[in-house]
């Protein structure tokens, strides 16, 4: 970011953030961190990351642009600077990804003042970890096909149903929850709640195991669970519109997530290092021209994503305002998938090895990251759905469903 376009306040904040991060970068955790918050598995990881988010929050690097009355700092244009500096400093990611990028902005748009005061501060500080209750066994890509029922009972709603794909559910205090409150219309029959999870009666969180054998996401069962009407977000029957707000923030979240995460090395460099360290038929894989071509192809995509992000902010070079932003989820998730798949190919015989094997390249990163990449091409709208969205909203072709 060129210094020229920052206000003096912002410039000062940038310098502060840079200095603070340099001085406060946390020690290496005793347990290896996963690549994204969605794969946080253990209490040890959680505590470490929750502590780090709290520290950043206290330093003003989280919630910088939120109103003071909701736990923020009331600035303008500070958060992007903070995110960029966190990314540049390669510090750990912020664990409360659902709270920060989905719950808080949705509550800010649709919530009552009381709801904003109650919920937003915990999202920012990381004290209240949130999870997302949108996916159901029968409502994957077809998100409006919600079967979880909420029935009014005095000041409460009685919720019954089954949510799946609930990342961070095992640590979550709260869930952003879509329910069906009317069987009439598919879309107008939905209502959105801020539902208590941890220790709440009638709520059971069961970890789901991923194809890798790791856990990290969950299914959540509601059996006559009570949710106060005070925790309903926006009007009854407006759940679809609220969920769309959430998804808008989610789809742009990759950019605003902040923190360097597990990716401490440029992904292309990582492939190059692997190729240098791997032998194919008597030569280094890094000397095999077909492998070199494949790596360079990935490097070009990586650079393209980076420059897309830059171009998205140059209005004169964007004919359609949503054309680049709506690509982000599709292209970044498939980028990781293709990259890690190439890593598996390059690793050759050694790609068979699990992370516990001492000869596994980079502690078994490649096959695990490859398998985990499907989490991102499936969740929050599969790549197929993303292509529909782009074809319809950007290119104006008729709906495929």
């Amino acid at each position, binding site marked *: 970011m060129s210094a020229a376009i920052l206000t003096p306040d912002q410039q000062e904040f940038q310098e502060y953030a840079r200095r603070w991060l340099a001085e406060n970068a946390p020690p290496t955790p005793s347990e290896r961190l996963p690549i994204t918050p969605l794969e946080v598995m253990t209490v040890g990881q959680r505590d470490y990351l929750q502590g780090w988010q709290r520290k950043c929050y206290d330093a003003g690097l989280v919630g910088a642009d939120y109103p003071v009355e909701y736990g923020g700092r009331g600035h303008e244009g500070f958060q992007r600077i903070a995110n960029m500096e966190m990314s540049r400093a390669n510090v750990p990611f912020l664990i409360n990804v659902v709270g920060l990028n989905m719950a808080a902005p949705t509550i800010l748009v649709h919530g009552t003042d009381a709801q904003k005061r109650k919920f937003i501060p915990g999202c920012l500080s990381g004290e209240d970890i949130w999870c997302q209750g949108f996916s159901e066994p029968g409502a*994957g890509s077809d998100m409006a096909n919600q079967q979880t029922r909420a029935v009014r009972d005095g000041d409460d709603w009685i919720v019954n149903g089954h949510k799946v794909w609930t990342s961070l559910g095992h640590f979550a205090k709260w869930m952003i929850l879509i329910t069906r409150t009317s069987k009439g219309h598919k879309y107008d029959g939905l209502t959105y709640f801020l539902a208590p999870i941890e220790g709440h009666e009638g709520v059971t969180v069961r970890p789901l195991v991923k194809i890798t054998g*790791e856990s990290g996401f969950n299914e959540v069962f509601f059996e006559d669970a009570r949710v106060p009407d005070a925790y309903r977000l926006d009007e009854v029957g407006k759940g679809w519109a609220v969920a769309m707000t959430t998804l808008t923030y989610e789809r742009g979240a990759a950019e605003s997530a902040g923190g360097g995460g597990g990716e401490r090395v440029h992904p292309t460099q990582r492939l190059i290092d692997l190729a240098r360290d791997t032998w194919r038929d008597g030569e280094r894989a890094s000397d095999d021209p077909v492998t070199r071509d494949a790596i360079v192809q990935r490097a070009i995509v990586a650079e393209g994503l980076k420059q897309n992000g830059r171009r998205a902010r140059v209005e004169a070079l964007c004919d359609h305002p949503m054309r680049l932003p709506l690509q982000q989820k599709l292209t970044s998730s498939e980028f990781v998938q293709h990259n890690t*798949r190439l890593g598996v190919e390059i690793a050759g*015989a050694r790609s*068979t090895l*699990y992370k516990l094997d001492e000869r596994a390249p980079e502690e078994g990163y490649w096959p695990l990251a490859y398998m985990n990449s499907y989490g991102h091409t499936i969740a929050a709208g599969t790549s197929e759905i993303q292509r529909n969205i782009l074809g319809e909203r950007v290119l104006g072709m008729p709906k495929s469903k």
Partner: protein
Amino acid sequence: MSKKDSAPKNFGFGEDEAMLRDLARRFLDERLPIETLRRLVAEAPEPVYDQGQRSRWDEGLWKEIVELGWTGLAVDEAEGGAGISLAGIAGVVEEAGRHALPSPLVATLGASLVLREAGTEAAQRVLSQIAAGSTASLAITGERGAWEASEPALEARAEGDEVVLDGSAYFVQDAFKADVMVASARLGEAVALFAVPADAQGVTLDADHIHDLTRDQATVRFEDVRVGSEAFVSKDGLGALERAWPGLLVLVTADLCGSSEWQLQTTVEYARQRTQFDRQIGFFQAVKHPLVDAMVEIDRAKSLLYHAACEFDRGSEDAEKAARMAKSAASDAGAFISDRSVQLHGGIGFTWECDVHLFFKRSLHNQALLGDGVHQRKKLANTLIGPIGA
């Protein structure tokens, strides 16, 4: 009749081979349905991965397989085997792949092919044991995991009537299920082959932690292992390995074709049942067309597989070319249907409880085994186009 005309129209896959394959299919359908396989190898991830326990397999089932004579499929009748053509064997291995059978079948058949090419009396004695039910695996790969036979795994030195073997063989497939290790070792200028009992003095197995739940893999360490002439299978081990190589490629290709077909059919079935937006998802071309493309790729691999088996059976000069083509096509088809089978199963496909991961991982392993598509094509380019700069 010219050599060219002698390639049988049906790949040598006649009534007997079809019967054998059908029997294998029925037997495995009955004895190893997917629920049984899942209970066997994937009850919970922790015991498999986190405590480093080796993949479980059903030894009772294996006894039945031995009784069916499958260990001896590649052993000549003279040594008590069935002497089935490789085309016929490919049919059986396809079924093993389609059921993701955890067993030393492919390893044993591969070792048999190498021993048969060695052709010595020592080799024949081991083949007799295999026909009688022994299992074997090839210990021919160095630490780098090279995909060709040219670098032997061990060092050998003669001491009187004995030979002493030292070193380690890596990436040994289903090593914990093998009775005999068929190992390559440098002996002076040559690469020699030895058949060493897995329980011989000085042989130790070091389990790899691997993703594939349907096999095991190990480093086999040889420390001052002394073997007599009965173990000295070939002085020209490299020749035997190179002659058998197309056959080894065919075996892995057959396994890949079988597992790919399972992935295709299972995903198609899911696409016919799963409903989204009030339609079976198979209605959507984003689901339908990739599955068609996968079918096309699998069919290509399968046709090349039987061609390669047939070329091997008739001792054609093109056997290696055909086998590398088949392995390349099968590796790429396996990668593609593995990818689509997870993606198109959606959320459930990402979980441990969905069976697709069992085949995904077996396929991933087989894609790399003996060299992926890029590797095979590099070798093929030298044959088809000639060496670079020539």
